[in-house]
């Protein structure tokens, strides 16, 4: 495991961080996001989608739990965006079709409120990103890379 800590001071820096992290990902990887309401998870996912060339707005998946987007990226063809906020148990992630979706070729997934479903996330392929709110607009991203996998 390798842990890295990055501080951002505004939405533009968070967007750039998402693009930097994307550069180190492989198809099949899962980004597990944790952080309070308003910590910047939405901004991060939007940055990721922008870097992948997703067309149109990436809107919150809270209500539907899971949304998929085609991308323009050469290796990563699909983005699966999950919000576990409304799920009651980790196994509910299976019920919404998560395993089917992430096992399709060229897919990466990003899971918000990932701490609620951690036992269902792909072992060795899950990168944890823990967001903490700092002073004013500062956000501290703690990024934990798995031993095997992307980096």
């Amino acid at each position, binding site marked *: 495991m390798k842990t890295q800590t990055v501080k951002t001071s505004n939405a533009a820096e968070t967007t750039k961080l998402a693009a930097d992290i994307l550069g180190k990902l492989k198809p099949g990887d899962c980004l597990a996001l944790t952080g309070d309401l308003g910590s910047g998870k939405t901004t991060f996912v939007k940055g990721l989608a922008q870097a992948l060339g997703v067309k149109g707005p990436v809107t919150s998946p809270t209500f539907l739990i899971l949304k*998929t987007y085609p991308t323009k990226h050469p290796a990563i063809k699909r983005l699966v965006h999950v919000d576990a906020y409304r799920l009651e148990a980790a196994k509910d992630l299976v019920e919404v079709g998560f395993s089917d979706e992430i096992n399709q070729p060229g897919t990466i997934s990003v899971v918000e409120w990932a701490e609620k479903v951690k036992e269902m996330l792909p072992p060795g392929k899950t990168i944890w990103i823990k967001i903490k709110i700092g002073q004013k607009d500062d956000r501290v991203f703690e990024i934990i890379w798995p031993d095997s996998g992307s980096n």
Partner: protein
Amino acid sequence: MIVLGIETSCDESAAALLEVKAGRFKVLASLISSQIKIHTKYGGVVPEVAARNHVLNLPGVLDSVFKEVGLSPQTKKNDRPDVISVTRGPGLITSLLVGVWTAQALSLAWEVPLVGVNHMQGHILANWLDLPANRDIELPALCLVVSGGHTELVMVTGPGRHKLIGRTRDDAAGEAYDKVAKLLNLGYPGGPIIDRMAQKGQADKYELPRPMINSGDFDFSFSGLKTAVRYLAAEKKITSAKAKADLAASFQRAVVDVLVEKTLAAAERHSPKTILLAGGVAANSALRSRMQAEAQNFGFKFSLLPLKYTTDNAAMIAAAGYINKSKAKVAPNIKADPNWEL
């Protein structure tokens, strides 16, 4: 003509029977799983996220909807609907599949044509359900569709003909309500709770942003507003019931300001005859009264959707099935599409 509607795109398992006479929609029966006590052999009544609950609930809901109208489609061929309509998207794939497969099985068994329809088109068409004989909705109409999962402005030019002209770029308005209710420990669902509290609060007490109100387009953003409430609650140490009511009122004012002003700006640009609301947040008392007053101020007609057809239901899906009945076939191969936007 009788249309059976089936809806399982998200949390609710719903079925409805709609009678269409001279193009007017009369709802004969419309049930959602959370409304009725389903016989225990069909399982629980609490809607949950998982598709397995649709599997448990939908047969009971279907059964009850036919019973309510006094029909026995299993044994009497004449009691079967003329068309079956099912939500094919947008929604959660595993939940959509339960409705689609059930509808396909019924279509095959009863030899009744089936059509897959768009959930959002259904929400818009809910405005025509049980419309009194002396009332019509003049077209074109501008419809604000606003719910837990959607915030969209749609121009409606004819039955089932529409064009998306604006949408949320992040959270839906209904989601902002749920999340703010959670931040303030008010409970779930947030919409009705905040609406009730707001009536006791002072809406100009706290200053909150009106995101994108002057953006020049017809898109929305509610993610930042939720964050602003979070900061404000922490900074002003909002804990008392009075302070919470004031914050709820201030938040509701901000949301309604944005929804109403953007709708009116879109109306100025696109010149509809009528303004409509649709979706679960259309049940919000402040939105209903403000939109009605402002629409009429600016010289637009306003048609108020009955409360019971604001949230997810299958009568609206049956209406969408009627509009698309030319595409209905017996036992067609319908593909659920979770990302099917209007």
